[in-house]
Each structure stands twice: as C-alpha cells, then as structure tokens.
C-alpha cells in the first residue's frame, strides 16, 4: 500500500497526511478528557512523551515487535493518566489544568535527565515502522471505537459530567469513576499517538513534548468544536495543514498562526463544528424526511 502511494503522492504530502493521522489520534484522546468530559487538561504532550519514549526504547533496545511496543507505551501512558485522574476527585477547573501542566513539565524534565532516553539530545535511529497504512487503519479503528464509546452509557455519563456535575451525580452517575476513566482512555490514545510519532520521526527529544505541544493538541480540540468527533478531526486537519500552508510567509508563520487562533475564536467562539456528533450526522443523513 505504501509502496504504491509513494509512486503517486509526493513524499511531502504523504508526510502531512501521516502527521494528520497521528494528530487525530492524539486529539481524539484529549477530546475525551477535555471536550467530552469537560476536564481541562493542558498536559497531553506528557502522555504522548511517555508513549513515545516507552515504545522507542522497547523496539530499539529490547527488540520488541512494533505493535507490542506501541501497546506497552499506550498502556503506560494510560496508567499515568489514571494517576493524574485521581487528583481530579478533589480539584476542578483551572486547578486541574495547572496540575496537568505541572505533570507534563515534570515528565519533560524527567526525560531531560533520563539516561536511557539520551537526556537532552533525545533518542534517534528508531526504525520507521509507522506507515500510512498502519496510521490510517488505527485512525479508523480509533474513530469507530470513539463513536461507539460516546454513544454508550459511559459516553453519555461523560457528557453529563461536562454539562452539570451535580446534576450528573444526582442522576446516579459515579462522577469520580467516570472522570478517572476519561483520563485513562484519553491518555491511552495520547500514548498511542506518541509511539506512532516516535516511529515516524525516528527522532524524539524532550523539547518535542513541551508545553506548546500540549497547547497545539488542545487547539485542535477546541477549534473544531469541543466534544465533537467530526469537529476534532476537522480542527486537527486545519491546524496540521495551516502551519504548512503558512510556510509561504516563512518567518511570519507563527505570527499568522497566533492571529488565526484569535480570529477564529472571535468569529466561531464554540468551534467550527461545536458539538456536532457523528450520531447526529447519521441521523440527519439517514432519517431525512422521516421525522
């Protein structure tokens, strides 16, 4: 599949398409935590780095098969997501945001001093296992499972917590359990994205997972529309392509990127596709005229 693609698609475009896929997985993970359950997390890059380093070390130094390394990285990230989920029992809103920022920073500083991870230099020479096929098959699986999850009882509990935590509790939802669950699932996807990223770039370093990376992923979720899968995908596509398109303006790229965020928020304060769910789209497409 990839061999055929490289014949027809320019390597540069293929690269962007693969990065979009990785970013979709990352953003959908954060969407579960922040978009759906409403727990502001600004440290997604922390989970990503755990997945990336774990998977990279496992394939490089222990010779584990790629899929096992990916799974191990994602699971370890999920475990840390679970740990971070626990303070959410007591903290809310911006206090929680601060804890997630702090967590991601601690992880970054840890990797800066982590001998097997190459310290500040980082790790390089990972085999480039991540291909177009693998990424997009995983993207489709993640989207389908995500849609399934959000339509389930668990997903509705997530939305209920975001809309009104007290009302959710009064309706018999164990908010604690679901908040921790949202963090665990979300960070699993973060770790998965990280593992894919490491084996696509073949090079990772602590500064790749700094605060700005978390913010980039958060932007994708908020820009597209919080809690919406199509919205998150759209936001991810736009924000992955935008910096590439802005290459024409070279040095002014980030200047435009910053201004773009402000302008988009002024004109579409609830995101491009605020709260449109796959479920709603399907209903609209298939039940037309029924009503």
């Amino acid at each position, binding site marked *: 599949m990839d061999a055929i693609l490289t014949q027809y698609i320019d390597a540069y475009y293929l690269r962007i398409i693969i990065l979009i896929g990785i970013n979709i997985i990352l953003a959908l993970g954060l969407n579960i935590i*922040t978009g759906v359950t409403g727990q*502001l997390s600004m440290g997604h890059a922390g989970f990503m780095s755990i997945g990336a380093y774990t998977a990279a070390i496992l394939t490089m130094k222990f010779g584990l098969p790629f899929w096992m390394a990916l799974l191990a990285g994602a699971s370890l990230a999920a475990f840390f997501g679970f740990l971070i989920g626990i*303070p959410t029992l*007591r*903290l809310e809103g*911006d*206090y929680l*945001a*601060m*804890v997630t*920022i*702090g*967590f991601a*920073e*601690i992880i970054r*500083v*840890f990797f*800066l*001093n982590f001998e097997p991870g190459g310290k500040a230099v980082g790790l390089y020479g990972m085999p480039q296992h991540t291909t177009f096929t693998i990424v997009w098959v995983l993207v489709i699986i993640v989207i389908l499972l995500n849609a399934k999850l959000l339509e389930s009882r668990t997903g509705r509990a997530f939305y209920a917590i975001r809309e009104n*935590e*007290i*009302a959710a509790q009064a309706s018999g939802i164990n908010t604690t359990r679901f908040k921790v669950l949202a963090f665990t699932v979300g960070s699993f996807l973060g770790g998965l994205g990280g593992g894919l990223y490491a084996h696509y770039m073949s090079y990772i370093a602590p500064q790749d997972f700094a*605060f*700005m990376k978390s*913010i980039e992923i*958060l*932007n994708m979720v*908020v*820009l597209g529309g*919080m809690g919406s899968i199509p919205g998150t995908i759209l936001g991810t596509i736009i924000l992955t392509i935008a910096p590439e398109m802005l290459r024409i303006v070279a*040095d*002014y790229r*980030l*200047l435009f*990127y*910053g*201004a*773009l*965020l*402000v302008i988009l*928020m*002024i004109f579409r*304060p*609830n*995101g491009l596709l605020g709260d449109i769910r796959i479920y709603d789209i399907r209903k609209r497409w298939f039940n037309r005229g029924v009503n």
Partner: protein
Amino acid sequence: MFLEQFLNGLTLGSTYALIALGYTMVYGIIQLINFAHGEIYMFGAFAGLLLVTVAGVNLFVALIGAMLFCMLLGMLVERIAYRPLRGKSTRLSALISAIGVSIFLSTLMALLRGTNTTRYPDIIHRHTYTIGSIEISSLQIIILVVAALLMIGLELLIQRTRIGKAMRACSQDLEASALMGINVNRVISATFAIGSSLAAAGGVMVGIYYNAVWPYMGTMAGLKAFAAAVLGGIGSIPGAMIGGLTLGVMEIMGVAYLSSSYKDAIAFAILILVLIIRPQGIMGKKQVKKV
C-alpha cells in the same frame, strides 16, 4: 548559607509574585487564565532594555516607562482579543484566544530582535553588602524594595480607591456589579492595565538580575507565575504574593540542596503536592458547589 539562599529565593519569589498578581487579578474578575501575561512580562523586560540602552535613562525611569508601555499593551490585548469574546463564548475559547495572543507576541518579538538573548547593560552599580555571614547585593535590595512598594501600592489601590472598590465588587459578582451601575468594561480594562504594569516591573527586574532577556523568556516565567497564583489560591491577591514567595524560596532551596537539573520540575512538584493536600490553594476560599 541557608539564609543567603533564602534571600535569593525571596528575590526570585518576589518577581514571581509580581507576575502572579496579574494572573490572579484577571482571573478573579473574568475567570480567564491570561496566557498572554508571560509575554507582557517579556515585552516589559524589552521595553526597559530599550529605554536604558537607546534613551539612556536610569533604572527607575526605565521601570516606570516599561510599566506604562505594558499598561497600554495589556489594555490593547484585552480590547482586541478578549472583549469581543466576552459573554458569547465558553471560557475555553477565551483561553485559546489568549494562547493565540501569546504565540503572536513572542513571535513578534523574535522577529523584531532575533531569538538570541540580549545582555542587559549594567545600569546600577552592583555592590555586595555583608551582614554577619549573609551577603546581599544592592540589586537584590532594590528588587525586594521595589516589589514590596508595588505590592503595598496595589493593596492601597484595591482597598482605598473607587476603582479598587469597583474591582472588588466585580470579582464578587460581575453581573450584579453591572446592575449597580459599574462600568464593567472599564473595570476589566483597568485590571488588565494594573496587572500588566506589575508584570512589566517584574520583567525589567528579572532582566537586570539575570542580565539577559530573550523573546521566549515569558513562557516558563508565565507558567511558574501561574503556578504561584494557583498555589496561593487563584483569585486571591495576598495569595498570589504568598504563592510567589513560597515558590521562589522552594525552588532556590530545591536547587541548592537537591539537584539543579530538576530545577523546573521542583516548582511544579511542590504545587501538585500542595494542591492534593489543600485543593483550594494556600489562601483560596473553599467554594461550595451549589445547584
């Protein structure tokens, strides 16, 4: 040795406190984490540098000039990027807008001045006093005194003046204040002006103290100051002062007695520990959630 480190900590902490005040004041009124605040601080440091090198003024004139400049900058940012969003968007969109401003401003400065660090000229004679076994530089004394004066001034402004009273009213209930005839937009503008000028003062003093300014200095300082504000209890002005000082002292102590390679992680680790024990921060009031 211990006392000397303690003094160093207080010096660093008082600059954190100055920046944290801006975060906490804005948060207290419109519940927005103003992520552009770190960049305002950076602009303050550069404005001071420009005044010292180009205009050749002395430290205090530069300090006041930088504060006035950032006052205008802060009001401008609020007018362009936050006011259009107010009332019609979720808090998260405002946050993304703030992040956009932050990226815009730091890139702007990088384009204007290059990404390298610029040295601050020695504008004051550095003299080291020895009291018993403690050594304290004239610069540290100036920083501590200026920070203390600014904080006392702020406290007087908040408690004794008409605009201060209006700010306190707005932080209690924005809507009720508007109904009582307070011009809410003007109060918010004033809050941004005051917070930004304090950050500028912090910027100039950090620039002189560490002898260097660079366009991305605002990111880490902003994060740590935000951590200080949360540590003290976000929304509380005395909390920001105490949080800043605590964080500064703890960080210096951590570097001195534990490890310097974990410098950036120490502040966040302390923060997370404190929040787990006291979720509302040191001075924050416990909010009872009501329907």
